[in-house]
Each structure stands twice: as structure tokens, then as C-alpha cells.
């Protein structure tokens, strides 16, 4: 099976569904019904292939696996090249996991232009998965920026009242960041002579160039993550996007930034990364504390969760730049858990929004009485977002903070403060929505989860608990890649300047501490 073009298959299979949908003919309702089923089956088959890739993935090596190569623009050394390692594997699985969930979640709530909606989501799936698999810069950039088109349409067509503003803001912000990255990619091309990522990863860029390239990549990824102060597109986009749009946005698109830092910024520009680490720390801490405070006073549920996303992604960027095994594994884990948990939280908001058509927190209250199943589901995801031990959120935050403590105590201190605030705003949200006495008739009349919503939430609940109880399933395949990454960064820093020596001393100690931490948590 290793010889099959599995990555090409998993990437482009959704387009088969798109073609099938395009040739549908008949009455509007028939087209809508058929489009939903086609989208569901296509995305489920795609999920199955993604799981097969995970199953076949060799967790003992740091090399790229399932590598495929084909000539594309041979005279420029630009080729179609796909491959995954421990970092990208889970993002592929995550994208494939969330798409069918989005399809089911939009089953009844999207009523107009259903076919176009499903097409947009399947195209989006292709672009997301392709982006994580691409091993060529031009190919990567095509997927990375191509994502903007379907997302722009999803927000703009099926979004809320201010959807046009939000869609434009999302598009232009992200575009502004990524065009600078395009120039950096071209500059890399002239340094290495090809757009092959693997070659660029092993290339020593001159120090002065590293600074500029790092900044150009940073412009793109910082907007995508998003980091404070370029996060302002996110609350708007989340609030206006349809529920499934928010799920993909929070679940996968934000991860592109974190993935970019890990894949490109750290290994290719180690010296510049070291130089800018204080900047990233500062921005991350501001993001964690400031957006948590902002989340505390939000009146709109989606906006609150959007700000919490910024805070959680702040933890991710912090973890990535600690350059410790725990920090990076924590950041990776945090991205995965945030991908599931925040997606689930947006779905929770979508459930009540479908019934009452408002996201205003004050309109709700006392849902525990008439919606017990919903209250339970919401509670689990809320606690996972807070980082309760036993849920997915805990592992990521714990590991990241452990990494941060070793890198810089003050950074860790401030980051921990943010976590306390995180607990505050989430619990406050939950109290206002779920507890209390029902005062309004329309709230009293709300029905509990229907079977379709249960179908959506059950797999997500299972994954969140699994990640919390036995994180090693996920940590193990990424370990070789991450230690390889750290080693290569440190060795190039050592050759770069003498100070780098102290990184290695810490690393052995940290690995011991980490193993103890993980094994202690195993049941």
C-alpha cells in the first residue's frame, strides 16, 4: 500500500464529489438532498483513507513518508511533490475528520444553495489537506492561498448580517500576509535553486537573509494563527460565518499558521527564530492575557469563543518557540485538541442558534432544565477548553507550560495567568447559558439535541476523551519528527554562534521530565 498515491487520493478525492454534484439535475429539493448525501459519502470515504494513512504511517522515523513526485514545471525545478511526517499527519486526519462533521452539522440548517455550499466545503477539504501534504513551496502556496476562495464564499453567501464586511476583512487580511510570503518563497528559490521544501529545510541560509525571510513568513503565519495585534479579522469572521464555516475556520485554518511556524520558520531560519523569540513570546503573552480579558466581557457567544481561540493559539505559538521537546509537542497537541474542542464549541453555539436564532448570551439561561443532553455535551467541551485533566485540552497546555518554564519562568508565569482567565470566561459563559432559571417562553420551548446532532457530537466527545486519557496515541508518531527538528535547529545554531550550547544541556533533562509526565498519565 506504501506505493499507492495515497496522499494524492486523499487530497483530490473530494473533487470527485464536486464533479458528481455539478452534474446533478432536477428539482431544487432533489438536488439539495442528493448533494448532501454525495458530500457526506465523499467526505466519509476521504476520512477512511486518512485513517488508513495514519494506520500505515511509520511512527519510528522522522523522514517524510508516502512521498510522491511528478514533474510539473521541470525547467524551474518546481515539481508536484507530496509527503507527510509526524507534524503534518494529524492535520490531514483532523481536516478529514471535521469535514463530514460539517456536512452533517449543516444538514438542516443550510437551506438555500445547498449544492454550492457542499461544493465549497469539499473544495475546501481538498485545499486544506493538500496544503498539509505539499512538499513543494509553489504547490504549498497554491493550496495555502486557494483556501481563501471557498472560505470567502462560505462566509459571504451563507453568513450572518455583516457577512460582507467579515468576508472582505478575512480575505484581504490573509492575502496581505501571504503575498509577502510568496516573495520570500521566490527568494528561497534563488538561494536553493528549487522550490523543494526538503532541500530548503536542509539549506543554510545566510544570517542577514534569514531575518528578512523570517519576517515575511511571520507576516503570513501571524495573520493566519492569528497573533495579537493582527487577530481582529477572526472575531468578525467567526461571528458572521455559518456554524460549519466557523468549525473549519477554528478547526483547521488557524492551524495553518502554527503548522507554518513549525514546518518553515523554525527549521529553515533557526538564527532568526532565536533572534525573534522574545517578540513571539511577548505577542503570545499579550494574546493570551488580553484576549482572555476581552472574552470575559463578550455578549455574543461566538465572539467569546473566537477570542478564546486567539488565546489558545497564543499558547501554541509560545510552545513552538520554546524550542523544547515538551513545548513543541504541547503546541502540536494543543493545536489538535483546539481543532476538535473549539470546533465542537462552535457546533454547541450552532445548536442553540438554530433554535432561537440569536447568539446573545443574555437571551439564554437555564438550558440545563429542558436540554440535559446538550448541557452535558457543552459541559464536556467547555471543560476541555478550560484544560481539565482527563480531557484533550489539559495535555497540550500542561506540556506547553512545562516547556515554557524551562525556557523562561516569567513567560510561563504569565501564560499560566491566562489559563486562569480562560477558566473564568468559559465557566462564566456556561453558567449564564446553562444554569439559572428559565425566564423566557421561547427558551423553555427549546428541544434537546436531535439524533443528527448526537451523531455529530459523539465522535467528537470520544476523540476529546481519548486525547485526554491516552495522549500517547497522538504524541508517539510526532516524537521522532519533533526531536529531529529540535536537533537540526540546535546544530545549525551551534555552528551559527557559540551561545547555542546551552540548548542541548536542557534537552536531555527535559526529555526525562517529559517521559515521566506522559507515563504518569497513562492509565
Amino acid at each position, binding site marked *: 500500500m506504501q506505493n499507492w498515491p495515497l496522499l494524492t487520493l486523499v487530497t483530490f478525492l473530494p473533487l470527485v464529489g464536486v464533479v458528481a454534484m455539478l452534474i446533478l439535475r432536477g428539482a431544487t429539493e432533489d438536488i439539495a438532498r442528493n448533494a448532501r448525501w454525495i458530500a457526506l459519502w465523499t467526505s466519509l470515504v476521504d476520512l477512511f483513507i486518512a485513517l488508513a494513512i495514519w494506520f500505515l504511517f511509520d511512527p519510528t522515523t522522522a523522514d517524510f513518508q508516502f512521498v510522491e513526485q511528478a514533474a510539473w514545471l521541470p*525547467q524551474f525545478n518546481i515539481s508536484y511533490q507530496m509527503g507527510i511526517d509526524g507534524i503534518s499527519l494529524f492535520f490531514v486526519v483532523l481536516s478529514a475528520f471535521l469535514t463530514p462533521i460539517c456536512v452533517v452539522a449543516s444538514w438542516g440548517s443550510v437551506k438555500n444553495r445547498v449544492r454550492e455550499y457542499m461544493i465549497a466545503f469539499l473544495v475546501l477539504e481538498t485545499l486544506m489537506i493538500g496544503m498539509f501534504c505539499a512538499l513543494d513551496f509553489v504547490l504549498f502556496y497554491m493550496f495555502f492561498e486557494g483556501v481563501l476562495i471557498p472560505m470567502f464564499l462560505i462566509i*459571504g453567501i451563507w453568513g450572518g448580517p455583516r457577512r460582507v464586511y467579515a468576508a472582505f476583512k478575512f480575505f*484581504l487580511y490573509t492575502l496581505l500576509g501571504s*503575498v509577502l510570503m510568496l*516573495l520570500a518563497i521566490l527568494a528561497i528559490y534563488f538561494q536553493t535553486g528549487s522550490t523543494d521544501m526538503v532541500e530548503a529545510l536542509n539549506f543554510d541560509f545566510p544570517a542577514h537573509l534569514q531575518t528578512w525571510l523570517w519576517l515575511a513568513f511571520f507576516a503570513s503565519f501571524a495573520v493566519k494563527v492569528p497573533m495579537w495585534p493582527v487577530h481582529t479579522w477572526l472575531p468578525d469572521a467567526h461571528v458572521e460565518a455559518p456554524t460549519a464555516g466557523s468549525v473549519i475556520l477554528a478547526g483547521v485554518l488557524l492551524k495553518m499558521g502554527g503548522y507554518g511556524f513549525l514546518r518553515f520558520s523554525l527549521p529553515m531560519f533557526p538564527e532568526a527564530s532565536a533572534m525573534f523569540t522574545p517578540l513571539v513570546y511577548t505577542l503570545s503573552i499579550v494574546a493570551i492575557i488580553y484576549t482572555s480579558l476581552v472574552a470575559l466581557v463578550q455578549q455574543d457567544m461566538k465572539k467569546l469563543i473566537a477570542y478564546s481561540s486567539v488565546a489558545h493559539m497564543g499558547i501554541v505559538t509560545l510552545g513552538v518557540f520554546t524550542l523544547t521537546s515538551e513545548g513543541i509537542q504541547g503546541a502540536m497537541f494543543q493545536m489538535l485538541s483546539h481543532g476538535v474542542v473549539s470546533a465542537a464549541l462552535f457546533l454547541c453555539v450552532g445548536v442553540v442558534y438554530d433554535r432561537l436564532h440569536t447568539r446573545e448570551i443574555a437571551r439564554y439561561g437555564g438550558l440545563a432544565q429542558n436540554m440535559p443532553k446538550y448541557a452535558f455535551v457543552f459541559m464536556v467541551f467547555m471543560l476541555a477548553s478550560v484544560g481539565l485533566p482527563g480531557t484533550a485540552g489539559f495535555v497540550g497546555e500542561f506540556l506547553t507550560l512545562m516547556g515554557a518554564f524551562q525556557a523562561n519562568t516569567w513567560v510561563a508565569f504569565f501564560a499560566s495567568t491566562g489559563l486562569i482567565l480562560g477558566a473564568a470566561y468559559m465557566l462564566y459563559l456556561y453558567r449564564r447559558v446553562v444554569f439559572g432559571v428559565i425566564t423566557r417562553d421561547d427558551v423553555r420551548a427549546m428541544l434537546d439535541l436531535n439524533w443528527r446532532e448526537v451523531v455529530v457530537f459523539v465522535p467528537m466527545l470520544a476523540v476529546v476523551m481519548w486525547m485526554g486519557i491516552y495522549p500517547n496515541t497522538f504524541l508517539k508518531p510526532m516524537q521522532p519528527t519533533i526531536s529531529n527538528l529540535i536537533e537540526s535547529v540546535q546544530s545549525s545554531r551551534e555552528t551559527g554562534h557559540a551561545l547555542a550550547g546551552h540548548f542541548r544541556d536542557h534537552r536531555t533533562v527535559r526529555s526525562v521530565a517529559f517521559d515521566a509526565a506522559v507515563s504518569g498519565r497513562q492509565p
Partner: protein
Amino acid sequence: MIQFAASEFLPALPEIFLAAAALALLILGVFQGDKSAREIAWLSVAALVVTFALVAMPLHARGTDRLVSFYGLFITDGFGAFSKMLVIAGSAFSIILSMRYNEQEGIARPEYPVLILLATTGMLLMISSNDLISLYVSFELQSLALYVCAAFQRDSLRSTEAGLKYFVLGALASGMLLYGSSMVYGFAGSTSFDTLSHAFQDGGTVSIGLIIGIVLIAVGLAFKSSAVPFHMWTPDVYEGAPTPVTAFFSVAPKIAALALFVRVMIGPFGGLGAEWQQVIWFISVASMLLGAFAAINQTNIKRLMAYSSIGHVGYALIGLASNSAGGIRGILVYLSIYLFMSVGTFAVILCMRRQGKLVEGIADLAGLSRTNPGMALALAIFMFSMAGIPPLAGFFAKLYIFLAAIDAHLYALAIIGVLSSVVGAFYYLRIVKLMYFDEPAEPFDRPVPREVQAVMLVSALVVLFFFVWPTMLVDGADAVAAALFAG
């Protein structure tokens, strides 16, 4: 007495054929009267197809060799053949687009396609000119035909005004070009590109008079390619001229002017790169910025396309500013892709008709995705492509241009370029927003003429699927650009 051998004529066979075809069709049209307009139009397209083949075949057979004939006045090479193919394709597309429109507006006359053929002949000669004299003569041949085209809807005040405006300003530009040519002749002693190129081979000290001459020639060419700060006529002429003429203006003359720009700067003045590169740099930046910012507030789609085309010229000129084979390759790839994007967009604009009346407001596109999903999808593809969003063709156009800029260390130019492309994305997105996010306005007339539909479909497919197999175009452009520098 000058004697011409057949081998002297052979390189100019496409131009000779096209000129003869234009004259023959003119006679045919005069005898048959206005009712033969459509027939003449199709015959003109056929003539262009034959010319295309005549241009393409020697390129295929002989490769990119340089061939100078007519006592040094006329040059054929790979670069010329490539640009000519684009020009011919642009002209053929615009004739196809014009047929139904002219019938509906009551201006269907056989002279129209003939004028386009004559203008095209001028453009082909222009691209092949190897002397300041032949440059000027062919330049005027195409310009005069274009002035008439702009004023072709002679009962319309707007069209005649556009024609007059274009004529007055165009005459000024021709004057500049001529003045510049005479200064170059005065200070360098020759009008032949080969002699000039030889004289300036190693740069050295250059007299100020010569610099002024070169700048004046650049002004004339910048005017024709509607680059800032000589763009003022563009929005008015684009708006006033009949829409098929606007479609024609936005592709063929623009491509020809840019090809000539390349020919003149790289050819005779190639050794003086350091002198003119900064001029091109400025024109390029100004065009990109103006194209991006001035388009934001436009409400008329033809005006918007005018500013958009100004911006595109700015991007294409980045390639010239980098003064390298990579830059010329970038220009050629850019122009090829621009041809399809622009023709496709104008095909959609030509379908914007309600109760037989043409509408040109951007707001009239509102809700097009509901009333005519196919057309909306095509226009959305063109808009995203013009904004340079991958995986559409427009992205590759920009990619090769910026590749050349980075290679030539023009970092500031590249950064300004990508930033203004973000601003430009705003107004392209605005059209997508109108079509997809807004409530439908009254639908456009059906059915859409079949030939217009075909042009739209072909362009959309090319733009959408370019990424699958970009090698052919890029390889071709690469070969002819390299040959231009080697020769």
C-alpha cells in the same frame, strides 16, 4: 534601384497576407453592402487564423532564429512570433465578440472587421520593426485604424467623443515618439536598431540628448500601453467606445505596445539598461498603484476594467524593469494569461443587457449567481484570477513576474507590486460580492449569443485549468526570451 528577392518577402508573409486579406474583404464588403457584415466578420476571423498559422509555422520549423530583411527594417524572431500570436488571438476574439453586439446596436458594417484587420497588420509590423522609421510608420498604421474603431458608433456622442479624445492624445504621443526618434538619430547617427544596439553595446558615457530621446520614445510607448502617467485617455476611451472595441483595446493593442516596448528597450538601447530601467521602474510602480487605488470607487464596469488594465500593464512592466531574459519571459506569460482573462471578462460584459439595452453599472451584476449561475461562475473565475489568487492562471502570471523581479534584486518593486495586488483584490472581490452575496437584480437578456458563450467558456477553462499543464506556455516564453537576449 532596389531589388527584392522572394526571400526578402517571405519573412513578412503573414503581414502581407493580412494586409491583402483586409483589402480584399473591404472590396467584398463594399460590393455586398451592410447585410454581409457577419459574413465578412467570419472571413476576417478566418484570415486571422491563417495569419496565425503563418506566424506559428516558421517558429515551429526554424525555432527562434533572428532574421532581418527589407534592408534591416524588418525583423522576425521568436519573441516577435510569440507576441504576434497573442495579438492575432486577441484580434480574432474581439471580432467574434463584436458580431452580435454590432447587429444589436445597428452598427454592423463590414468595415469594422476590416479596420481591426488593418490595425492588426499595423501591430504585427510594429512588433517586427527593426528601425525607428518602420517603427513609426507601423505605429501610425495601427493608431489610425484604432481611432476610427473608437468612434465607430458614430451616432453615439460618447463614442465619437472617445474617438476624438483618443485621436488628439494619440497624435500627441506619436509626436513625442517622433521627436524622440529624431533626437536619437541626431545624437547617435542612425535609425537602425542593429546599428544603435552595436553603438551602445558597452554603455559608456551617454549624452543627455540621447537620454531625452529615449525617454520621449518611452513616453510614446507608455501612452500606447496606457501606463501611468500617460494613462489619462484610457478610462474615457474605454467607457465611451463600443464595448467590443473596448475589449479589443484592452488586449491586442496593449500586447503589441508592450511587445514593442520590450523590442525597443532591449534591442537598440539594451546596453543602456542602467539609464532607462529607473524610468520603467517608476512607470511600473505608478501604474500598479494607480490601477489599484483609482479602481476602488468606480461604478462603471468598463471604467473599472480600464483601471484594472492600467494595473496589469504595471505588473507586466516589472518584467521589463528587471531587464533580463527572465523578465521578458514573465511579460510574455503575463500577457498570454491576461489575454484570456480580459477577453473572458469582456465576453461577460457584453452579455449585460436588459430589454435589449446595454447596462454598464457594476451594481447591475447584483445577484448574477442566481439569475445566471454559469456566467457568474465564469466572471468569478476571471476576477479571482486577475486578483492573482492561486490556483488560477493569474497567479502564475504574477509568479513569473515577481520571480524575475526578485532575481534582478528589485525588492522594493516586488514588495510594492504584491501590496498593490492586495488593494486590487478588493475591487475584484467587490464584483464577486455583488454577484454572489447580494440580492438578484433584474436578470439579463437571454439567450446569450452562442459565439460569446463559446469565448467565455474557452477563456474560463484556460484560466481555471492552466495550473494542470503550465509547461507548454512557460517553455515557449522561456525559449523566445532567451533568444532575444542571445541575439
